[in-house]
């Protein structure tokens, strides 16, 4: 089974001294979010969002902390976290460029948009630039089909995008600083 890497079973979770789930996050979550749900595990997606938003990815240690916080098994956290695409279980670049590749976008010019991003950043889809600034992905319909093609840079949507605008949009994101 080539897809199971040799060390995966024995891999230790990388640890650091300070927690990812900060005391402020814990108090916000336990006061405002956890009580919304009949069972604590209902708050799992919100907890993962909190970590993803703060760090740009979800480290193993954070998942262990969430498991302890919600009194569930680490395996339950990983099961859920690994199912949803928006959660990054590996580091990505500071900025995420997501190009919609679904039906309206592909047939209204998306291939040219993906190409323009690739050219501007010198990476392929799924890769991160060497300076760790940008990761490029393609994803499915962003709900902007009437203004296709659409791309999401971090949390900002751009519609009716033209290839010549790409360099400018990337520059603006770079200047705006880290944003998960």
């Amino acid at each position, binding site marked *: 089974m080539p897809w199971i890497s040799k060390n995966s079973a024995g891999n230790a979770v990388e640890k650091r001294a300070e927690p990812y789930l900060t005391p402020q996050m814990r108090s916000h979550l336990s006061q405002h979010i956890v009580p919304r749900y*009949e069972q604590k595990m209902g708050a799992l997606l919100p907890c993962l969002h909190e970590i993803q938003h703060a760090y740009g990815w979800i480290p193993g240690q954070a998942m262990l902390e969430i498991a302890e916080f919600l009194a569930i098994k680490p395996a339950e956290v990983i099961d859920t976290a690994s199912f949803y695409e928006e959660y990054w279980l590996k580091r990505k670049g500071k900025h995420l460029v997501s190009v919609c590749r679904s039906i309206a976008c592909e047939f209204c010019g998306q291939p040219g948009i993906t190409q323009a991003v690739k050219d501007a950043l010198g990476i392929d889809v799924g890769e991160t630039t060497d300076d760790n600034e940008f990761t490029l992905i393609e994803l499915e319909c962003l709900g902007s089909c009437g203004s296709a093609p659409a791309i999401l840079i971090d949390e*900002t949507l751009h519609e009716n995008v033209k290839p010549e605008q790409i360099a400018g949009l990337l520059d603006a994101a770079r200047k705006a600083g880290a944003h998960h």
Partner: protein
Amino acid sequence: MPFPPINPNLSGPVLTQRIPCWPYADPKGRHIVSYEEYTRPGPHGAGYESLRKAIGMKPDAVTEEVKKSVLRGRGGAGFPTGLKWTFLPKLKTSEAGQEDDPGQRYLAINADESEPGTFKDRLLMDFDPHLMLEGIAICCYACRIKTAYIFIRGEYHHQAKVLENALREAYANGIFGGNGLLNGANTARGGAFKVDCYVHRGAGAYICGEETGLLEALEGKRGWPRIKPPFPAIKGLFGKPTIINNVETLAHLPSIIHHGAEWFMKQGKVSTFPNTPPSHGTKLMGVSGHVNRPGVFELELGITLRQLIEDPGLCAGMRNGKKFKGAIAGGISMGILGPDQMDAEMDFDIGRKNNVLGLGTACPTVFDEDTDMVAVARNIARFFKHESCGQCTPCREGSGWLYQLLTRIEGGDGRTKDLDLALEIATSMGSMPGTTICGLADGNNWAVRTIMNKYRSEFEKRVKPTSVAVKMTVGAGAR
């Protein structure tokens, strides 16, 4: 021949009364409607006054009114909304007329909107969030539900913020929380009725739009659809009775309660099939693709696709004067309307009349004569392969297989036999053939099958006779 008038039974828009849309107003004038603006009087009553009217009625009378209107779900399946509500467990009423405590029940609002080609719920959440909040409050009262979760897709960052703000306004004005609906006003049910409403963000998984996948995601689990029965109305979120409704469905409730069911039943049309529910009311139709003016239009059900595309008040014709080649019926899962099906009527009978799966989200993606239909099929197959949750073998394996076959055909390395094979795979997957748990596989089935059948010659031109050796692209080397 000129087209019939747009929305012949209405003097103006209903769902989009505060959101400028063609042909009524220029979308440039759109803005987020605040609580204050929402509560001003309008042609369909002042905001939250329908809620006031509703709580002055017995909950079952509200349900009865919705049932009578035959409002059908706007999320894709078209199930009659009032009827769905009656599937909740019945409550006993004491001699004194006091109803039993309903216990914990939930409303899950489906704002996952991830069906490719679909961008209509977003319009309501972008600009007039209180309309759906009022619908939520009315539904909760009618169904005696105390907690509602708006499940919104993760990519709708902006819309989630708009909703959070609107909810803050609604809480501050005593709609939700506090002492009960409308600042603890006395209801016809007896006493106040308190409802809480929360936003719950998804995280990038189309399958969470399927109603039971959505419930799993609300419980913090992976979005694997559940086997039904039990149906959610009996055993849903956290095992409690649960109603799931689409954003647009709920947004229809305030005007139905304000004007009454008869008003709603004058719009749209009745079915031409015996014993089939009608298609009443307006529908948000989002048109994308190769038309001059794509966008969301609010139209009475039954308008033809031709009028939608060609009417100067709507999409104003095909882009660059090109010819119409086909249109996805309403979200890619529904399959395709071919070149000779432009006169299809956009209502809930569209499936039976035009050999597509159904009306779906009523959001057609239109293709012009230059479009490569093999590429369209490949794009759609890739979507389903990517979004299959993997529980059912025919869907998990079939979707990957179809995508690889179509990639191969698109690249010119397909063989004649591949066409039959692709159709065989497509036909065998889905909850309707009875081989899978949810309808995602049916969408894949219908999309691929209708495209291959309606544009067969394009596929045939791309493949080589079966005796010719071709490059194999299946496995690790496949795209």
